[in-house]
């Protein structure tokens, strides 16, 4: 079983100080460099998940970000060819408390350190990650730079410069960077099953067009589970192009960056889609963009929500869902349009986690019902979307 893990990659990480993390306030953390040798700047956020680091690092929503993992052991189950959420890794860098250990899992294929190298991700370990988390919690997510060098020599001033000069995530449209450049048809893989892994869906009852602001594969897999054919289109695909695909429903994907920046071109497209009564479902950035399109405002949060344990209250059926979350922006409560109903709220801070239009089959959630990683309590949202599609199909819009 564990034999599959490539032992050659599990080389002992040097005890020497070979990595550095610098925050915009000039605070310096020394540590051991891991992953790719180089320097990367991004917003330093923390994620509190205990499992699913491969999914997290490969989530395009982390574009422009450095992830500080609060759980000390990261890498224990290695990496494999199934658990990534995107083919290209957009995360800027990673911070682990403890050195990466040799992997042990029957599915493990590659040591995490080798995987990071392969994907050109810099990382640092051997520092007080809880201290960093406390800092982020109290002061908000800072800009920061990780630099990894075998020599252990760093030009700190230069690194600080690079950090402060970076504009940060605010007003940054990252969706246009991570989005697909061309339309493509999802290959039809369904969600992972223990015995069979990923299997293909052959029935295509509905056609969903997913606007890719940085989509996670597991969303597409869930659509396959619900017998959908999915066409993924670039984030700036025009309303005309989208409607020419004759979709039964529109999906607004998750993604990185500031919704207000992406909204500049996305809002118009979404408004048109709403006007034409398409069933619409949005997740994360897609949710924020939907909010903007409907007249709500968004803002940057102090530290954001990133983890797999976030409780969300569902006001439709008065229950609690444990959700997977990853967002640094949110829809603000003030000035919500009247036709917009809040369906979900965070039980951590009362923030808006879900909205729907009162008179149209349009809804979205801030969290990740597709999980991966995280609890699968909220899969019902996909079903609701499909129900909306079914209801809508009867109306024969075309």
């Amino acid at each position, binding site marked *: 079983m564990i034999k599959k893990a490539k032992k050659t990659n599990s080389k002992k990480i040097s005890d020497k100080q070979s990595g550095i993390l610098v925050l915009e306030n000039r605070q310096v953390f020394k540590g051991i460099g891991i992953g790719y040798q180089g320097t990367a700047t991004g917003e330093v956020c923390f994620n509190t998940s205990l499992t699913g680091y491969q999914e997290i690092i490969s989530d395009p929503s982390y574009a422009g970000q450095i992830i500080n993992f609060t759980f000390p052991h990261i890498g224990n*189950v290695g990496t494999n060819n199934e*658990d990534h959420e995107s083919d290209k890794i957009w995360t800027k860098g990673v911070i682990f408390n403890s050195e990466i250990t040799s992997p042990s899992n029957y599915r493990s294929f590659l040591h995490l350190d080798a995987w990071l190298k392969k994907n050109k991700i810099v990382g640092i370990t051997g520092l007080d990650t809880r201290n960093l988390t406390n800092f982020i919690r109290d002061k908000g997510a800072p800009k920061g730079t990780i630099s990894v060098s075998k020599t252990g020599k760093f030009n700190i001033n230069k690194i600080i410069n690079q950090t402060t000069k970076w504009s940060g995530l605010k007003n940054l449209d990252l969706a246009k960077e991570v989005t697909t450049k061309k339309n493509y048809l999802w290959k039809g893989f369904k969600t992972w099953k223990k015995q069979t892994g990923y299997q293909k869906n052959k029935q295509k009852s509905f056609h969903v067009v997913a606007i890719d602001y940085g989509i996670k594969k597991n969303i597409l897999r869930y659509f396959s589970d619900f017998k959908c054919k999915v066409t993924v289109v670039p984030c700036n695909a025009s309303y005309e192009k989208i409607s020419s695909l004759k979709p039964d429903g529109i999906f607004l994907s998750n993604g990185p960056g500031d919704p207000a920046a992406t909204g500049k071109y996305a809002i118009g497209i979404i408004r048109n889609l709403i006007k034409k009564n398409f069933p619409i479902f949005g997740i994360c950035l897609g949710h924020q963009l939907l909010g903007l399109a409907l007249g709500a405002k968004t803002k940057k949060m102090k530290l954001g929500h990133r983890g797999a344990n976030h409780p969300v209250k569902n006001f439709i059926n008065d229950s609690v869902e444990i959700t997977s979350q990853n967002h640094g922006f949110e829809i603000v409560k003030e000035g919500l349009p009247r036709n917009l109903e809040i369906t979900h709220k965070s039980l951590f801070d009362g923030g808006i986690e879900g909205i729907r239009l009162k008179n149209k089959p349009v809804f979205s959630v801030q969290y990740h019902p597709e999980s991966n990683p995280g609890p699968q309590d909220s899969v019902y949202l996909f079903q609701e979307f499909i129900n909306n599609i079914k209801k809508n199909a009867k109306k024969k819009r075309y």
Partner: protein
Amino acid sequence: MPKRKDIKKILVVGAGPIIIGQACEFDYSGTQACKALKDEGYKVVLVNSNPATIMTDPDVADKTYIEPITIEILEKILRKEKPDAILPTMGGQTALNLAMEAEKKGVLKKYKIELIGANSKAISNAEDRKKFRKNMMDIGIDLPKSKVVNKFNQASKVLKQIGLPAIIRPAFTLGGLGGGIAKTKKDFYKIIKNGLHESPVSQVLVEECLEGWKEFEMEVVRDKKDNCIIICSIENIDPMGIHTGDSVTIAPALTLTDKEYQVMRNASIACLRKIGVETGGSNVQFAINPKNGRMVIIEMNPRVSRSSALASKATGFPIAKIAAKLAVGYTLDELKNEITKVTPASFEPTIDYVVTKIPRFTFEKFSTSPATLGTSMKSVGEAMAIGRSFKESLQKALVSLETGYSGLDRVFNVNKKEIEKKLRENIPNKLLLVAEAFRKKINIKRIHNLSKIDPWFLEQIKEIVDNENKIKNKGVPRDFIEFNRIKSIGFSDKKISELTKIPENVVRKRRMALKVLPVYKKVDTCAAEFKSFTPYMYSSYQRNFSLNSECEAEPTQKKKIIILGGGPNRIGQGIEFDYCCCQASFALKDAGFETIMVNCNPETVSTDYDTSDRLYFEPLKEEYVFNIIKKEQEKGNLIGVIAQFGGQTPIKLAEFLYQNKLPILGTQYTSIDLAEDRDRFRNLLNKLKLKQAESGIAKTYNQAIKIADKIGLPLIVRPSYVLGGRAMEIVYERNDLKKFVEEAFKAAEDNPILIDKFINQAMEVDVDALSDGKDVFVAGIMQHIEEAGIHSGDSACSLPPVSIKPYLIKEIENQTRKLALALKVKGFMNIQFAIKKDQIYVIEVNPRASRTVPFVSKAKGLPLAKIASRVMAGEKLSKFNLKDKSKGMYAVKEAVFPFNKFPNSDLLLGPEMKSTGEVMGFDKNFGMAFAKSQIASANSLPKNGIAFISLKDAHKDEGIDLAKQLIKLKFKLCATKGTAEYIRKFGMKCKKINKVSSGTPHIVDVLDAKKIALVINTGGGNSEHRVSDAIALRRATLKNKVPYCTNMSTAYACLEAIKSLKTKKLEVTALQNI
């Protein structure tokens, strides 16, 4: 949904005495539940026979019944109290079984009482193997191949279906009692037979053997709106085949990818829903085949458990407290997370550290029983440790065990071949063996193949061993970075000292000079995502290159007192001491001090985050305690450290505290030493003109023999500085002397051994007293039922004494006063006296809280530990109301033994303590109090039937009187040849029965045929076959659950009890009503 208003009074069922498989975790859960329900305005009625618990303190529930946990007693309480509901999920299997019995017998219906938390349907869905299986199959959860056997003749068919090896589990038993793994046909039939017998419903489950698979547990909480959360995942390092209570376990699970974890999460939630646990916590166990990931469900417990206590301590999420509130109608989102204060309880805790739990075993006390592990639990306690990495956590846990380990110690110093052989076996301390295997250059792959331990853990252990070598070669590190790195792997100063051969205090000095100091991090349920308000902390040497690790301890400016807890449970030291520590904390908090608890036992109330103002979850060892004291001294005013409430564990630290000039509260080290130092203590007694048996102290074997010859037989030989009479023996014959002396030296490690004249056929008396240095209060004088020579922890005793002459009681009080003042006791003192021919002898004095403090407190209605702690903090005894509130009630303490867990062990008692727990019988009448104590300790006495008598020659004369009384009570007698003939001589009828060695049908056959109602057996004699005869008889007694007594004085007490049972009505009394 707000709490229910239709119920007003709730009965909580406790777990009874501490036994293997059911320890103080149920005091923790029960106490939490009672407090939570009371806070919500419900009237709480509690029944628990265990006086050592915190939950039975009269403040905890509104009505506290320290009564046997049986259906008859329950019905009496129900009739009296008329509660609206019973919460059966807090008292382990005992409470669940009682609830099921109440349901079956129609008691619940009769009194219109509802089960809350789990109803009878859910309980039986989970506990009845057949139903459980069907339910799981219905929802598509995979299970091991399995068949249920209800009758022995079904066994062969089942054997064919399942194949070998197979696991056999009896239904409705504790800790898998009576089960096992069968590898051969012969074993298979044997275990089935035994299992059918042990199961109260005569049902066993035969399962596909999953030995070597990975084992996981999920702690799930559900509310009535069907909101489900996972509190914690737990991974067993020991693979399937070893009871989870006996396995080294860690939290969270470390070898699952998110996909596998979510499959398990979904399955565990689906399981709760299907079983129908409406509200509360449950534990679901899974096994995973490491080769292909196949996951099967093993079992689920629809109640809080040992694992849920562990999960609560591991995450800071108080499962039992929340479960109690859910049971009365709240939903998770309505309850607050008390640690963050701003978030609700409806979330899944996340952690940023690794938790390791290691069980503590006690095979050395049952040396005739093999030291192997299996599906039936054997450990008597556990230690938990928290570290920022697995390695740190593991090494801290090993130190926390207090078995003398300073890390991965070399206890298996055997050759490579032997190690490889042992790696296959299920033995205790397997990880130490793994470490030794690495030292002997056996590679990971081979170790994994033999032990089936996941390679991830093996590699971690290998890295620890590699670093041991590095330390050995390079010596104590000379720079911060390297020293800090070593410490972040979890190496204790002691281990570094052992590896470098440099004294521990020098290692410590060098470390501190380099500023390599631990930081304290908080357990906060959320990995620092939210600010936390409860200072529940653990130490860590966070790996660091720049000296800037963050310490979150933030000591306050207050007046503070540190309380050192008792560490992991063991025979001789358990819940009684946790009771004392908690009481001290409560009392000192009331008196305006900040209380700081240090302990490493996850089962306890003391390690609940809201018991004390601050909690350090740390090993109770010099290094760790020192660091905490230094940290707390940084700010505020540390009044002192309480070392006399946690049993022998903190007392052992007193010398270290004294030498390092750290303030001890109450009795000082010099007094502790004076009481322990034989010579000085002897001089003191002489000065006070008190009598003591002749004694001597020996540092060498020759010295020991010389002393023995001088004093003369019989003798008691024992090591110094041990608790629970470890390796203590009474020597009657010169031939045995050599062996026992050698054993005592072995157990004493570096300390000398003690040799005393044994005062035989004497009555033993236990005294608990308090002193403030001027006044002395004799809190309780307990007369042992068993005669001197049997460990006080194993003896039944009566408070007040039943047959001590008043002037002797006065004299005992006088002597106690003299000793307390002479020893300058401030706080607790316990003295054991022997009385022979109206002469009083001092056996030993312990200037600390004793095992009987909670018993005396409950019996007399006095919060002794609270008073003692305040006296230690400077108040005068005269300030307190010390009036005895027992109003003439008799309290009888009876010990409970784990013999059923240790095959082949003898039931005979001696100077080495063997009991795991205790019960209390409480009544106006001594006989009835004793009868209750026997019912509560599962030794329920008969009112009639056949009594079997087998007596030592020395007891035969007394036996005649006994026989006469039995006949008067309408018992029929039978006896082995010698005794029978002797009884007949006095004109009484007595049937002759063969001894085992005299051939069938013998006494064991008769016992197996369930024809005997009572066994009185006072031991064999010395020749080998007579001993084995007697052991066989006693094991058969145990197996058939026939009440028995093994000495004369107990037999008389039993007669007294039987008389009461025949003439009086069994009544129940709440402590609050006395």
